[in-house]
């Protein structure tokens, strides 16, 4: 189910460890997905995207995995740094619905 209000799921990781943030999307017809990072008081910032004809896409220190069978998306951050602390959320897109955003996961990087 969705998280509503202030009680975002939180992931705490040690600096230097890898982080995995998960997202369940709702529409099997969605064909484009984006991971965003949102720092406190700022707008969402694009991290990485993936189209539905792919299973995996890698960026700098980040990897997105898409499992269409179970409508699941994950974001992997390698060697997590203090600057990675933020709320991360996925967005799904299909024509006629525009972007639908997930509720987000708060990533907290411990020193």
């Amino acid at each position: 189910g969705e998280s509503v209000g202030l009680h975002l799921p939180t992931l705490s990781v040690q600096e230097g460890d890898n982080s995995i943030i998960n997202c369940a999307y709702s529409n099997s017809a969605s064909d484009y997905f984006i991971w965003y990072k949102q720092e406190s008081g700022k707008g969402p910032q694009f991290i990485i995207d993936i189209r539905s004809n792919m299973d995996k896409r890698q960026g700098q220190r980040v990897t997105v995995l898409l499992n269409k069978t179970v409508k699941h998306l994950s974001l992997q951050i390698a060697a997590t740094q203090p600057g990675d602390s933020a709320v991360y959320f996925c967005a799904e897109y299909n024509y006629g619905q525009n972007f639908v955003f997930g509720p987000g996961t708060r990533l907290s990087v411990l020193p």
Partner: protein
Amino acid sequence: EPEVTQTPSHQVTQMGQEVILRCVPISNHLYFYWYRQILGQKVEFLVSFYNNEISEKSEIFDDQFSVERPDGSNFTLKIRSTKLEDSAMYFCASSDWGGETQYFGPGTRLLVL
């Protein structure tokens, strides 16, 4: 690096008043969007705009809302008669192609009293 800008950063208004939120999208972008984020909740799509007309809108975007691109650079969101529940962060975004990566502005925090 080009960025989306929004003004004002904060707006406080009385219930029933009209507000206009302003955005300057990235200059070569063709698609423009407004989203809102109520405190502590997820980002919600309001409206998308292309070729000087609304292309998609959500259920939130009722008759109290309107958008305009008055001069080829600004993109505005007007709320005609604000309600308490309109209090939220409003984000503008733009993209060069519909459905592709959207670049978000820093947001306008609207507080309706």
